[in-house]
């Protein structure tokens, strides 16, 4: 192993060792908590191949190459799993993976021109590359006004299409940062969830109601700025409209903030200048970003770890993710509290949190159910076996490109300047195949992503996805032999067993079993007159299998 890889590993190990004195390792706590509530036998550990594919997808957003798989499987070092986790966390794809996962989670595939997707992605990638503490990142997203360069794109969260209404913002801040779907509480206290009151809803709205999208007429740059707030908000339940109430900004379960009054004309701290909007003296959204993300806000901490847990484990400790309330208790209440507290204590270090999760036996458990245990006797919330997660549209794209050996060529392809590519034009045959990675990703997310505003949590295999895999010319083009891609490489191998090995390692990150070896040999024999096409079909069958589609 090269030296530069060893060094960060040692640093992390030292950090971990330092923590032992104070508290048990978090991954041990996770395993104890899960074992305690398993209610039945636990699955054995995942095989090296199973673990490798899973951790690559989770921490780098793609499957490994066949060469990486070979070297990991051959490695005899007993600490190789931990080393792999550390290598992926330090690797270049980690930030991209987190950017993709968090973009899908926070924007829910909403798009908009106020802030370009590119600059938002760059901002998130830089944040994760630098391992910016999660409370700070969340705070920047919540408070962003677009006045200063590096965090300017953070306002995208609020100014994206379909979210520019303050009610929608309130609902999405509550869902995504506090784990509360308060929609029903806009018009009355939630009918079935006692904790979600209309006062909570309006308390949150009061932080956001005076924030507006403005454009600098000179630079056309978008701002999301605060304007003076006249006073507390009025509200009344539709069931008792005569009972008029008022609230200033207030977080659920916390104290209301008094809205200061200013003499007319004295609300402004800095007047507008050169197209840059004015700054009012009282800025409730700035307060929101501080109060919401503080370690004292239990809901924020719990929602945060619950969402990272969901990304790694395939299901929230509280599930659905945005129904965190007493009537929908966590599967492991004590563990959720421990994760939340230790994450805060660790200064909201995301890499540390993901690392601890990845090192747990719970994460490294096989997806095969324990012997004799039926699926219905091992409900997902007990984590007796690994939960299969659907590949996101992004993971699927990177993995398809990686598996078919077309990734390098596409990454080297010149970027299409001012691309006019749209999904609609493409499927209607008005424009040719995607020419660069951005167009490819746009096509793939249009097929495999949800419509804007629909969260992607559960696996929803649609007929449209299958039709795409069955019939899409782009995918077919990846299965034609070209410049060292998978089908090209396999075409040069004479022995069927060698073809099978390279095929299975490249696509499914594992070696074929005897049955699969025979199957490949028979297929090649049956279609020997058209061997290259037959190899493409073998690869297609693996790419279209559930084993490829799921992160298991």
């Amino acid at each position, binding site marked *: 192993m090269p030296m530069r890889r060893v060094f960060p590993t040692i640093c992390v190990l030292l950090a971990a060792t330092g923590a032992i004195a104070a508290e048990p390792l978090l991954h041990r706590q996770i395993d104890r908590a899960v074992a305690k509530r398993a209610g039945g036998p636990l699955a054995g550990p995942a095989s090296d191949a199973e673990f490798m594919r899973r951790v690559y997808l989770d921490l780098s957003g793609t499957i490994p190459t066949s060469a990486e798989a070979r070297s990991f499987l051959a490695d005899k070092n007993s600490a190789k799993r931990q080393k792999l986790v550390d290598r992926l966390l330090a690797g270049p794809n980690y930030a991209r993976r987190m950017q993709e996962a968090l973009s899908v989670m926070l924007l829910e595939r909403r798009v908009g021109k106020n802030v370009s997707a590119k600059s938002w992605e760059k901002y998130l990638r830089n944040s994760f590359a630098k391992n910016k503490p999660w409370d700070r990142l969340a705070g920047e997203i919540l408070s962003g006004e677009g006045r200063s360069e590096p965090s300017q794109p953070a306002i995208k969260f609020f100014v994206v299409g379909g979210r520019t209404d303050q009610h929608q913002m309130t609902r999405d801040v509550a869902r995504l940062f506090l784990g509360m779907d308060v929609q029903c509480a806009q*018009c009355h206290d939630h*009918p*079935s969830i006692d904790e979600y009151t209309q006062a909570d809803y309006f308390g949150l709205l009061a932080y956001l109601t005076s924030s507006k999208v403005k454009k600098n007429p000179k630079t056309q740059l978008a701002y999301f700025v605060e304007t003076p707030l006249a006073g507390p908000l009025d509200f009344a339940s*539709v*069931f008792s*409209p005569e009972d008029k109430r008022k609230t200033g900004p207030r977080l659920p379960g916390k104290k209301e903030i008094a809205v200061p009054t200013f003499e007319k004309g004295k609300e402004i701290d800095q007047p507008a200048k050169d197209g840059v909007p004015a700054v009012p003296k009282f800025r409730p959204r700035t307060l929101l970003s501080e109060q919401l993300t503080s370690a004292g806000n239990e809901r924020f901490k719990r929602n945060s770890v619950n969402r990272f847990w969901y990304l790694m484990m395939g299901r929230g400790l509280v599930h659905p993710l945005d129904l965190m309330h007493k009537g929908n208790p966590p599967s492991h209440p004590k563990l959720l509290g421990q994760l939340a507290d230790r994450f805060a204590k660790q200064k909201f270090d995301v890499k540390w949190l993901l690392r601890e999760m990845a090192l747990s036996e719970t994460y490294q458990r096989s*997806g*095969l*159910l324990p012997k004799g245990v*039926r*699926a*219905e006797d*091992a409900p*997902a919330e007990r984590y007796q*076996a690994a*939960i*299969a997660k*659907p590949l996101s549209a992004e993971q699927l794209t990177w993995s398809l490109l990686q598996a078919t050996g077309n990734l390098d060529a596409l990454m080297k392809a010149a970027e299409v300047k001012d691309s006019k590519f749209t999904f609609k034009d493409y*499927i209607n045959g008005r424009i040719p195949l995607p020419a660069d990675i951005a167009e490819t990703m746009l096509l793939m997310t249009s097929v495999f992503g*949800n*419509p804007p505003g*629909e969260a992607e949590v*559960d*696996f*929803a*295999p*649609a*007929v*449209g*996805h*299958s*039709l*795409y*895999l*069955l*019939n*899409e*010319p782009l995918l*077919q083009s990846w299965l034609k032999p070209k410049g060292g891609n998978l089908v090209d490489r396999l075409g040069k191998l004479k022995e069927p067993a060698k073809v099978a090995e390279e095929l299975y390692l490249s696509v499914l990150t594992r070696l074929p079993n005897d*049955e*699969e070896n025979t*199957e490949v040999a028979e*297929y090649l024999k*049956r*279609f020997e007159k058209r061997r290259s*096409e037959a190899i493409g*079909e*073998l690869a*297609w*069958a*693996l790419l*279209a*299998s*559930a*084993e490829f*589609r*799921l992160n*298991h």
Partner: protein
Amino acid sequence: MTHHYQCNGPDHTLSRRRMLGALAGGGVAASTLGIDGLLRPAVAEDMKSKQRQVLFIWLDGAMSQLESWDPKPHTEFGGPFRAIPTSVPGLRISELLPHTAKQMHRLSLVRNLHTVFEDHSRAVKPIQRGDPKNRGVTYPFLGSAVAKFLGPGESRLPPYLHIKPGSGGFHYQDAGFLGARYGAIALGDGKPPSHMTRPKSITDEADAARNALRQKLNQRFRKGRREAEIDAYDYSFSSAQQLMKRKDLFDPSKLTAKDQERYGTHQFGRHLLQARRLLEAGVTFVKVTMYYWDTHADNFNLHADLLAQFDRPFAAIMDDLSDAGMLEHTTVIVLSEFGRTPKISQKVGRDHFPEAWSMCMGGAGLAQGAVVGKTNAKGTWIEGEEYDIGHVFHTIFRAIGIDPAKTEYDNNGQPLPLANEDCGPIKELLV
């Protein structure tokens, strides 16, 4: 007010133990129907002779019974609309349904529904699952259950299609314990998905061979795992392949101008016309969802608007199914998750009301032109007998040729009643 269930009728005298005993050794018919042991076999034999179909219209958010099936004009809570005569002498429904009124001889009304759920999040799923007793399993939605009982029929098309506004997809969660493949294929805005044509470079032989490999991989992979996701994924491929053979079903050029005029070009009109085409093609269960019935405010204007969208296409599809002779094997159901309050709120709205509401159903296997049960003069209570959603499910299952008293699910060895066993069928509707 009493909540009297029509239970312990003669249908219940057959005990489960006896039934399991009686059916033992008769396990041949199941495989011929592809019903693979999830139903007790003797019943499967029963169903084999007649292909049945279902049109299920789901009015999401809850339609007001007072502005539709059970009007109370000139009463305290009656609202501004009149009641009009229908094709059934003596039966009157809201004037907001003038075309439907002419169809009532093909339909029946149940005016004495009393269910238990009063908010959407708790009602929408249990109502469509028939509110069975809690046995720690998730029951299938009606569409998944019917897809299971009746299969795809001769059409080989996916048996459960769901036309809805917005996005499509595969709603495998509908299937509950039946397993993912009985989920709903949702057609967003009634449209077919893209990519319905195979590239010319892939021959029939190559396509069959590559798909056989794919399926073998899935079979190997599912061993010893939670199979729901794997089966759902596999099913999405087989559905895709069947649909590819019937592209014509979605071809707008095949619609006549007259049909488009009769059904209307608005969303629900288009969706119901698409539903007719799918039923004609032999799809077993077609669900059509219409949203926005949750009229907490401005109930009367909204219902005038919504029912105008519903009325004409609904009457048109009833005419068409009847003219084509399809009503003889097609059961039609119009349902919401509950009714709406007689009391008119300060926002001129009606709120959620599961205590006394109505639904409409008719066509194959059901009495036509019948009215079951009644509410009091103000529509606030049921007078006399009441029915719960369990009764409705018993009735629907009987209508499509399954007797819940004689059959049950076999959930990996766990026998489960098809519908809530505290209920029985609505006798007045059985034929």
